């Protein structure tokens, strides 16, 4: 039997994020027998990122000069780098709003002489280092973590959320306005779009098990664009959603447009489309996506 010291070294580097990805990883114990965890702040007491890492998971966006330093150091010491969570792929929740006033007042209050400096915005990690595999999700489920770690090459991921949702799409149920928090409890069997909810599962990458839509919560798109929409202009993604809603509902187009611009969608939709506007970023091919 091999000793644990022979197991491949595995490390987790957290940049600016909420730790949700780390919490999700700890929800699975399947990796314990496959890897030797050598670095993960809080979980392993060491301040140095070790050499010769086989797999490095990076969560969080690059938001401070300290993040950038740690990212470059970690990347240079690992054979394979996996970007995990929506923040690592897009910069993160800090991009939630275009509001320049809020961003300026935020940067004012965050500038302190003796602390790591904030960069002008939060960046996705592939702005600075080579990424071998992308695992989007807020957070990715423990099952997806295991897929990324153990069988990325043969992974079969549902193309869109609808594939795993199981709700029935009806042709004769056409809502005339957007449903919201005050619309009561949705029917458990019928597609949320048929019931007027602003669900973006039709263009969002699957693999999550439709965790939100099955119990009746509209998909907010945390896994980002499905393969056909990778690297595409924001308008391309929004157009597709508009088409879905005009095909399946009688909601006025102005109302659909206003709803698509709402902040809770910009939490994710905005992050991923924002990403495509930076020409210096590498293309993300579907082979690299989990």
């Amino acid at each position: 039997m091999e000793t644990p010291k022979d197991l491949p070294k595995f490390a987790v580097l957290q940049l600016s994020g909420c730790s949700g990805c780390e919490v999700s990883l700890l929800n699975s114990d399947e990796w314990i027998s496959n890897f030797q965890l050598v670095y993960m702040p809080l979980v392993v007491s060491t301040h140095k990122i070790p050499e010769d890492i086989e797999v490095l998971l990076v969560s969080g966006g690059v938001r401070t000069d300290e993040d950038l330093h740690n990212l470059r150091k970690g990347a240079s010491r690992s054979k394979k780098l996996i970007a995990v969570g929506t923040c690592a792929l897009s910069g993160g929740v800090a991009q939630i709003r275009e509001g320049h006033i809020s961003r300026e007042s935020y940067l004012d209050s965050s500038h302190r002489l003796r602390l790591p400096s904030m960069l002008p915005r939060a960046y996705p990690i592939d702005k600075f280092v080579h990424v071998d595999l992308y695992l989007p999700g807020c957070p990715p489920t423990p099952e997806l973590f295991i897929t990324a770690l153990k069988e990325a090459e043969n992974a079969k991921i549902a193309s869109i959320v609808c594939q795993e949702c199981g709700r029935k799409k009806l042709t004769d149920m056409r809502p005339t306005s957007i449903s919201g928090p005050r619309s009561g409890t949705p029917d458990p069997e019928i597609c949320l779009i048929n019931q007027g909810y602003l669900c973006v599962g039709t263009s969002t990458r699957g693999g999550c098990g439709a965790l939100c839509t099955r119990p009746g919560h509209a998909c907010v798109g945390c896994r980002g664009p499905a393969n056909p929409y990778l690297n595409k202009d924001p308008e391309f993604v929004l157009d597709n959603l508009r088409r879905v809603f005009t095909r399946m509902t009688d909601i006025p187009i102005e109302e659909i447009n206003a709803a698509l611009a709402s902040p809770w969608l910009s939490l994710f939709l905005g992050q991923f489309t924002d990403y495509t506007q930076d020409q210096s970023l590498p293309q993300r091919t579907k082979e690299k996506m989990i």
Partner: protein
Amino acid sequence: MEMRGFSYYVQGIPAEQITVIVPRICGVCSTAHQVASVKALEDVFGVTPPPLATEIREVLLLGQLIQNQATSLFIFTMPDRVNASSLFEMGDDQESKARQFSLAQMSLKIRKIGTDLISLAGGQFIHPIKTVIGGVTSSIPREKADAMIKTIEELLPVAVDLVDNYWQMSLEMVDRIGTWGDDEPTYYLASTEADNFRLNSNQLRVMCNEGRQCHTFAPQEYENYINIEASDYSYAGISDFQGHIMRANSLARINLTNSFGTPKADAYLKRFDEAYGKPAHAILFFDLCRGIELVYALEKAKQMLETDLQNGEAMVRYQPRDGIGFGLVEAPRGPLIHRYEVENGLIKNADFIIPTVHNMLAIRRALMVAAKRYVSPEGISNELARAVGRVVRAFDPCIACATK
């Protein structure tokens, strides 16, 4: 170390959308943030959720307490007790490898009960979604409750074993290092009640230096009692209670609890009070108290799931309106308050009073105590780095979110 900055990003957002956004302040405490956020809007809109929803939210928060305390105890602080660098560090010989492997697996199993409870009552394992303004979107079906009860019944003895082991390891560690850490009296802050340990709480309580409960106040009044400032050496906010150092988190709750109302947790509470007095002050007691709370939360979750959480009204209708509202919950690290000001249906201002700000002065003092012990004119002891780690882990801080 960063600044989350949510109080800036949410300005101008439609108020009803904020409950999806703010759980992302912290993936560890997303549950507490989501419930506090919903409660703050219910306060603004003048909505009272039905009793069934209040119960289900409590189950949700118990799940989070289990997940958090199991993580802190077994993953973060148990390695300190055996001088290892992590729970997943295994020795070379087969016997120690097997023991370590089983310890790691058992610990993650207990932790998973918390995760499963969050999924059951919250609809998502992180960043839950079922708690909404006016109640919860669905109740807990009998068969799902029964399956969860069965798991808890199976694993409660395992958890008790782990906690007993942990307690024993702590005693051995204290024999080795010769101290339980900073044990000067402080004020204590918690929002659970003395004989009714509810995490879905309504009032804050304060215990003064001499161990007497001296103040009770609603979250709306917090500014009259608690002062919060920014500093230039940390992005974390730093609070004091009318000029006094205070502490929140497990030790504060235990000092302010007479009885849990569940048999095993009450037995541990009695053992703790008899051994260390009430109030107890040394910082490594925070860790023992997490063990007591872990056992309580498992027992209480089982008790609550045995009641009917399936039938009855889960949600009431509401009409939004403008105003100011406060949402309070007892998060694993102490009382969490969200304060929102809503104008024309949009968030005009939002404040997040994160529990760790209440521990910042206490952490600083405990670090000074450790430094004085291990730094002398003759030199710096090798124990210092480990002692600093133990202090920080005892407070289990949420520094990244606790910004000002």
